[in-house]
């Protein structure tokens, strides 16, 4: 009974299979993502606002939240400058080793966060690291301190801006840039007036994704931070610590704050992206 009917608006031919597939996909995503995530909201507000107020009046949690925000902002700024610069180099320039570099840039996406932490400890560790003792005698502590947390965070989010910007740079081509140059614009002017407006939205997506990733980094930060209460403990470490100490309400409330920010990031990207594509 595969009776097909044509829907004029979309031009999609619909058969029973269409509805079965639609249902399977919706059910899968509901069970794997939507339902579990919504339970965090439910658990957080079981007693109204008490558990949120509870964690927000705990000075150690507030310190951890501020540390997380500060670290994430620094890491995102570093990765944005590095990412835009590196994208321009990879797309607009030719140099030996470019292909290798382009492949290596993606490496941080597939390295375990624990390995990231270990790698940083082996180089910057205060006692036995390759560079750590020298830096520490110069009064600059990396591991068990904020710079280490920033590095771990910057490491894991490194490719995100580049992955957004590179395809757009390819797509816009070089004609306008060349025209600007031939009319006497400097490279700085060409970048500011021609290139930057064209890649603006790609940079924004990259930044939003990097921010979400940076606020939520856990494993790498756990290894390099030393997890000192009130000093190097970040928000994600608070979630673990609270849960393991049977403070489920505190864990859910902190997780809720983190989840809210990351969902907000995703929604923002989803809202801007279609506009860009309609351009």
């Amino acid at each position: 009974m595969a009776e097909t009917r044509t829907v004029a608006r979309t031009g999609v031919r619909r058969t029973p299979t269409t509805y079965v597939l639609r249902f399977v996909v919706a059910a899968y995503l509901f069970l794997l993502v939507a339902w579990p995530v919504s339970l965090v909201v439910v658990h957080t507000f079981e007693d109204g606002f008490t558990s949120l107020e509870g964690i927000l009046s705990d000075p150690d949690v507030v310190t951890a939240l501020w540390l997380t925000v500060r670290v994430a902002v620094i890491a995102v700024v570093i990765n944005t400058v590095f990412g835009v610069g590196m994208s321009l180099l990879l797309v607009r320039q030719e140099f030996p080793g470019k292909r290798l570099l382009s492949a290596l840039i993606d490496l941080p996406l597939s390295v375990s966060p624990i390995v990231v932490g270990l790698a940083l400890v082996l180089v910057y560790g205060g006692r036995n690291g390759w560079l750590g003792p020298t830096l520490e005698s110069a009064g600059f502590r990396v591991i068990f301190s904020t710079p280490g947390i920033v590095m771990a965070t910057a490491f894991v989010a490194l490719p995100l801006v580049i992955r957004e910007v590179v395809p757009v740079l390819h797509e816009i081509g070089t004609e306008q840039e060349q025209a600007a140059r031939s009319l006497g614009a400097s490279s700085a002017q060409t970048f500011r007036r021609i290139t930057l407006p064209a890649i603006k939205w790609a940079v924004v997506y990259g930044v939003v994704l990097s921010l979400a990733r940076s606020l939520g980094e856990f494993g790498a930060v756990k290894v390099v931070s030393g997890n000192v209460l009130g000093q190097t403990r970040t928000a994600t470490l608070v979630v673990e610590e609270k849960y393991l100490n049977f403070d489920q309400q505190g864990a859910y409330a902190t997780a809720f704050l983190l989840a809210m920010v990351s969902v907000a990031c995703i929604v923002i990207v989803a809202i801007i992206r279609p506009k860009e594509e309609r351009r």
Partner: protein
Amino acid sequence: MSTTNTLDRTSGVGLGIAMTWFSLLVLIPLSAVVFTAAGGGWDLFWRTVTGEQTAAAIRLTVGQAALVTVVNVVMGTLIAWVLVRDHFRGKALLEVLIDIPFALPTIVAGLVLLALYGKDSPLGIDVANQRSAVFLAFLFVTLPFVVRMVQPTLAELDKEVEEAAASLGASRVTTFRRVILPSIVPAITAGAALSFARGVSEYGSLVLLSGNLPFRTEVTSVRILSSIENNNLAGAAATATVLLVISLAVIVLLDVLQRRVSGRG
């Protein structure tokens, strides 16, 4: 091929600065892992990674990641198909759901899964401290990869070819197998590689969910962390090297595929 050099002074300096930072942040630290592992000699390395508990952790991690990747290949392609070819209300919501595992902090992902599939499960399914917890956590965190690789390729496919196949009498299944599938296979493979690499390296979502029981639910990353905490950095580096080799293999595969899929570089 890319031996020509178009760098002028400004971009040369820029490349120098970028490479210094990239080396200090990524290349030197990752080399340190391999050097530390090699520093103890081949014997120590081999003894560490074939040690009973470590070998069990590596087997579990690779096995579950492979299983999850198979599920993702099927479900990811299916999801991408529905998102590209079907139109219905609420589709935008599904798009958002797919990105959530990517943006959600991993520790929160673990907590979230525990809320539905833990001991107070409203469904009566309790996977906490079971092997299936590892599977579930991997499934959650790797959800976006195949979908997001396949989606753009599928959207660009020329519908006329399919219509031609159908008008020549090909069934929908044949059309899919002979016309659509060959053009999306590189994207599926790339997504599968990313999903496998992500699964193998996963840590955060398992901390609360799997109980980290040696020989049962302890994954490689957890094993490395306990070596670090016991101040056995050489052992940690040896196990970490195994993970790095897997990551590198995936990167090489992706590099080959991406040149076909998106033409980057």
